[in-house]
């Protein structure tokens, strides 16, 4: 039984709390881009991907590549909630000796398919995984989450060309289109629109959705799965810092943790949200 939308929403909200807490505890890390991505990541791991936390090396599994590796709190959060490792470990994030490195490291933690952190490399790796899974007849699908600032890396476009040309249809890339990077608004630094048209021109099945609408995310993932002969790119319009009022659309919280006072406020807001979800709102 796939989980209900309500369950996904609840878990995503609980992970939002963890994202705020773990970055606060570490006094470093990237809350903004983790909060914008968590709804997508939660949908993938909870409802779309074929994977087994008890057997992370299962060959037939679907793969997830977090190309924007700085959103590691989102990945660590879902991995913990899915049972890859104990939730208590989340609070060791970024500390000396922790498996939860600042950026996700393949050799450290089960569930991390490839080390990321230097932007722009994930989609090429996802391409290789998708090609290899086909070649070996394993049947797995590959998902790759990319940042909209990250899209400025040339390598991303090399990979887009490769998969478009090959028609790698077991591949689905997702753009976390939160419109902010570090130095400001993406559109001020390098115009990204019309992004759907660009991706389509490169041979992709490009879909645009609201990246915080669980139903839309699940439908887009299903459409991707059913699309043959082309890779799918889901352009997910998101809000950086989503779920914490003072972090939303605030470029300062790209790579800055909440203070203790801010953390308390954020948790209060998220607890309020959780209550509303419980009440079925």
């Amino acid at each position, binding site marked *: 039984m796939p989980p209900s939308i309500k369950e996904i929403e609840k878990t995503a909200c609980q992970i939002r709390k963890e994202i705020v807490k773990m970055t606060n505890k570490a006094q470093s*890390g990237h809350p903004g881009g983790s909060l914008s991505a968590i709804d997508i990541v939660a949908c993938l791991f909870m409802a779309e991907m074929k994977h087994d936390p008890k057997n992370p090396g299962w060959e037939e599994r679907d793969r997830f590549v977090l190309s924007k590796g700085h959103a590691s709190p989102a990945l660590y959060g879902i991995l913990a909630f899915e049972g890859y490792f104990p939730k208590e470990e989340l609070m060791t994030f970024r500390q*000396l000796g922790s498996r939860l490195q600042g950026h996700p490291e393949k050799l450290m933690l089960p569930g991390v398919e490839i*080390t990321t952190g230097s932007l722009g490399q994930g989609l090429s790796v996802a391409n290789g995984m998708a090609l290899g899974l086909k070649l070996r007849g394993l049947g797995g699908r590959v998902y790759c989450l990319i940042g909209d600032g990250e899209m*400025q890396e040339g390598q991303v476009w090399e990979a887009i060309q490769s998969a478009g040309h090959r028609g790698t249809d077991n591949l689905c890339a997702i753009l976390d289109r939160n419109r902010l990077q570090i130095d400001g608004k993406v559109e001020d630094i*390098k115009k990204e629109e019309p992004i759907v048209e660009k991706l389509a021109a490169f041979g992709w099945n490009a879909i645009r959705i609201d990246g915080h609408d669980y139903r839309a995310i699940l439908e887009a993932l299903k459409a991707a799965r059913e699309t043959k002969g082309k890779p799918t790119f889901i352009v997910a319009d998101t809000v950086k810092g989503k779920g914490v009022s003072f972090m939303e659309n605030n470029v300062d919280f790209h790579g800055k943790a909440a203070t203790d006072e801010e953390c308390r406020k954020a948790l209060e807001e998220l607890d309020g949200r959780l209550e509303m979800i419980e009440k079925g709102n």
Partner: protein
Amino acid sequence: MASKGTRDAYGKTLLELGRDDKRIVALDADLSSSTRTVLFAKAFPERFFNAGVAEADMIGTAAGLASVGLIPFASTFAVFGTGRCYDQIRQAVCISQSNVKIVVTHGGITVGEDGATHQMIEDVSLMSGLPNMRVIVPADAHQAEAAVRLAARTDGPFFIRLSREKFPVIYEENPKFELGKADILREGKDLTFVAMGLMVSNCLEASEILSKEGIEAEVINCASVKPIDKQTLVASAKKTGIIVTAEEHSVIGGLGSQVLSAISEECPVPLKTLGIEDRFGLSGKPGELVKYFELDPESIARKAKEFLGGKKR
């Protein structure tokens, strides 16, 4: 000891250079507040180019700007400003002898919590291997300023490696800084420390510890890693007969390797390289990591003493 940020010194100096010389232009790759090029960007928006998250594009653009007579300073973190665009630096900057100044911040393990992917410990090795490249790793903020000014007025490619952490201040303001000239900061007869960057002050501290035990260490700041000051190094090797190098970098291909090859013909004395031993970094607080990798003054003193004991006495 007071401490100051080498990247803060860079931001301030670049701004001043930009005021005095219209040929100075700056580029960044979406990290302008961290690298401090933001000060220049705000003052001279028409002479600032943000490549976004596109380091290879940034380096190529810098080479193009240089080719038409401008003096570009291109900045990002050490890992992205070297590894991510190595071939662009090789071809468009070094083979072409372009007047491009690559000034990176966040070198080494003191990047801290970001972990291995962001802790660049191979950059000095990568950049030193490139013909025509000059490689500078300043020991404090004042020397960083002097190095940036030297790069601005000296034609050709430069690589200057700065840090996220503030460094103890060693030099007075506006120190003399010459390419290919190392500074003897402390004279000694028993052992020579050769260091770059943060390790210079750690070696100075280590030499105080050793002094209490009757060991007088010479401390050489080898900020100009390339060209290297062979003369000063050889003279010190002749004097003390033993060298310990210290660097916040891999021991393969960095300062230690280069000091070794600088002395090996004329005065091959026993030499121990302290640095990161053929492995990647990891997350942790900067200070914790310096201790973890045994690059703190106490560890440096202990290792130097062990090495000395084994070799000389």
